[in-house]
């Protein structure tokens, strides 16, 4: 993109999006800051919680925009956010999957509802404080490994990426903070938000129980024998080891892990660690950062945010993406995204993990 591009900078009230907006303005673009009000109850800051959608954050974003010297508005995206992210999050858990709401928010809010509105209003691009590099329309990992957010952007299509701007990918977080402080942005030392913004307490399990209700059932082992009970299968994640509350120890005395979560049958299946090993993953709803691959592609697959990468071969068959891992991997949770990288650098595309197959060939 050349200069004098009209940029809409999404400003959460945090340090990253503030510096991103400032850099876009420095680059000579015509930048307008927008804070997305995502909470139906923006008063939530009164509880002392820190989310991405509190009144305090809106105020911080406004102050940052003042300092940068750009117009600033608040857009009410609460309804869309609720339907597309929060309800989806609940539905996914209710179906026994483990969703990633940040990824969903990028896919459906920031680079969909917000981008569409921005484009209609005459903007050319949406700028965010995500750590990732966009070069010639392709998406790459950020230089700061610890901060890299290409995974949660892996759902974006080439069309969405064509209207995106990520000015922070070439910089380390510590330098972004220093730059914020140099620029006189008061958010320079504001703590990072790690939690899910709509669960400010950080207690996801409790939040789910409040909304999905108590659905007690059995914890069973692979033979189907009942080894414990639970208050709601949806509160478990494949690969989880702690908090299983098992009443009967395993015969061999070894720790057991969640192998499968079936909220409809209200069962949680546990078993030994090796039973978590999978080497084939089938994903649905593929998204491509460039052209969809025609043949099987050799790539690296990342299976959760900040997770390890695994050598793999991916092949598209209709709307299903099969990812065959060179070596088995433990604890792959359906609902998470599998993001494919070329040379562990450039994002090829992604899919939502639908099911996995054990190293032996059995579906988990």
């Amino acid at each position, binding site marked *: 993109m050349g200069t004098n591009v009209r940029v809409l900078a999404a400003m959460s009230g945090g340090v990253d999006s503030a510096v991103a907006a400032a850099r876009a303005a420095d680059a000579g673009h015509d930048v307008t800051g927008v804070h997305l009000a995502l909470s139906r109850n*923006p008063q939530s800051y009164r509880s002392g919680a820190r989310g991405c959608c509190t009144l305090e954050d809106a105020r911080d974003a406004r102050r940052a925009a003042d300092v940068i010297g750009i117009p600033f*508005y608040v857009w009410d995206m609460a309804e869309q956010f609720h339907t597309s992210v929060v309800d989806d999050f609940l539905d996914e858990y209710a179906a026994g999957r483990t969703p990633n709401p940040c990824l969903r928010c990028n896919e*459906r809010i920031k680079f969909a509802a917000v981008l569409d509105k921005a484009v209609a209003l005459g903007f050319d691009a949406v700028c965010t404080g995500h750590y990732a590099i966009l070069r010639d329309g392709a998406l790459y990992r950020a230089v700061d490994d610890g901060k890299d957010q290409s995974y949660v952007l892996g759902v974006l299509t080439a069309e969405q990426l064509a209207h995106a701007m990520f000015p922070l990918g070439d910089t380390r977080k510590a330098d972004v903070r220093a730059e914020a402080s140099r620029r006189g942005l008061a958010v320079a030392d504001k703590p990072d938000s790690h939690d899910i913004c709509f669960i400010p307490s950080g207690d996801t399990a409790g939040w789910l129980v409040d909304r999905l209700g108590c659905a007690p059932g059995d914890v069973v082992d692979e033979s189907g024998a009942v080894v414990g009970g639970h208050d709601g299968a949806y509160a478990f994640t494949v690969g989880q080891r702690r908090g299983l509350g098992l009443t009967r120890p395993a015969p061999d005395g070894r720790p057991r892990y969640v192998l499968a979560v079936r909220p409809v049958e209200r069962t949680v299946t546990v078993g030994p660690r090796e039973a978590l090993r999978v080497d084939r993953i089938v994903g649905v709803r593929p998204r491509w950062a460039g052209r969809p691959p025609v043949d099987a592609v050799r790539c690296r697959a990342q299976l959760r945010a900040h997770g390890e990468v695994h050598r793999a071969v991916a092949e598209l068959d209709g709307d299903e993406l099969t990812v065959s891992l060179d070596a088995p991997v433990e604890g792959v949770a359906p609902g998470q995204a599998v993001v494919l990288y070329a040379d562990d650098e450039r994002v090829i595309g992604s899919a939502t993990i639908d099911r996995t197959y054990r190293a032996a060939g059995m579906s988990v």
Partner: protein
Amino acid sequence: MAYLDHAATTPMLPAAIAATTAELGRVGNPSSLHTPGRAARRVVEESREALAEGVGARPGEVVFTSGGTEADNLAVKGLYWSRVAADGRRRRVLVGAGEHHAVLDAAAWLSREQGAQVEPLPLDAVGRVRLDALAESLARDPGDVALVSVLWANNEVGTIQPVAEIVELAHAYGIPVHSDAVQAAGQLDVRFATSGLDALTLTGHKIGGPVGAGALVLRRDADVTPVLHGGGQERDVRSGTLDAAAYAGFAAALTEVVAGRADEAVRLAGLRDELVRRVLDAVPDAELNGDPDPAGRLPGNAHFSFPGCEGDSLLLLLDARDVFCSTGSACSAGVAEPSHVLLAMGASEERARGSLRFSLGHTSTEADVDALAEAIGPAVERASRAGVAAHRVS
């Protein structure tokens, strides 16, 4: 630039700036007994007299406050408390459904915390309180009504309320009436004594005075329990050090406004009619909210709904073209809530969200109308595309 948001705040008049700045450099607490104190007191009392003169009241009836919000709170809570103290049955508070939040939220607080029963008085389609509904509500049990509060003119859609009729209905039962004339005072013939009201709210910054100076004009025989306790500076009804500089500017503004008000109202109404005509020319499906009869609304007020558009998109686009207006009542988070006034007038939430207020004042000229007329068409076209985009959620 075209500043079309005078109802939010209007530039200070040169006379008001002069009066305020003249006092800012002086020392003296108006409540002090020494010479500088007396000098400051004199400024306060002269300001009080000028305000009283401007609003057709007696000086002793002017209670200075920090602005319209405080005056509204004092009227609603203060009248409620004293009326309940005199007779515990009086728990009904009748307020227009389209009141400013300073009245509505004060009443809501009384209902939540103090056992009041708040009855919103329904509005007709142009935003006027329905007198039949008020009459019916009063007649149901006049003995349990604490007070009636109705705007003189609505701050969003500009509709002028039938204050005289409301006073007559309520006074037939001896029920006190308060009116918020914050928007009306600069443009209409607001006279306290002739209105028959028991309490009237004014604020400086909507008439060319400074922010932070207001008044509750209060009949001497009206019993009002204070909201703020302290030195009792204002008739023991309101405490706080008197702000001579601010009141001087407030009084100077009102004096000047009242002197030219009749002519200015004609000038503004002419500009406003032109604005309405040209907006409707540019955007034929725009809908004028409020009273279509120019005599029924504030001369400086125009308020439209733009079907298919979000008000905040329009505001952003107009702002970028240096045309400044308002989407109605902004809430603290900066998120535009659909206006309670439009909803009370029977508008759909969508229509309420797609509306803008353009308000004219003493600095407004034909050029402002030209700028809006030029910008509004393209803005509406873009905003309606964005409106569609926003609803296409995956």
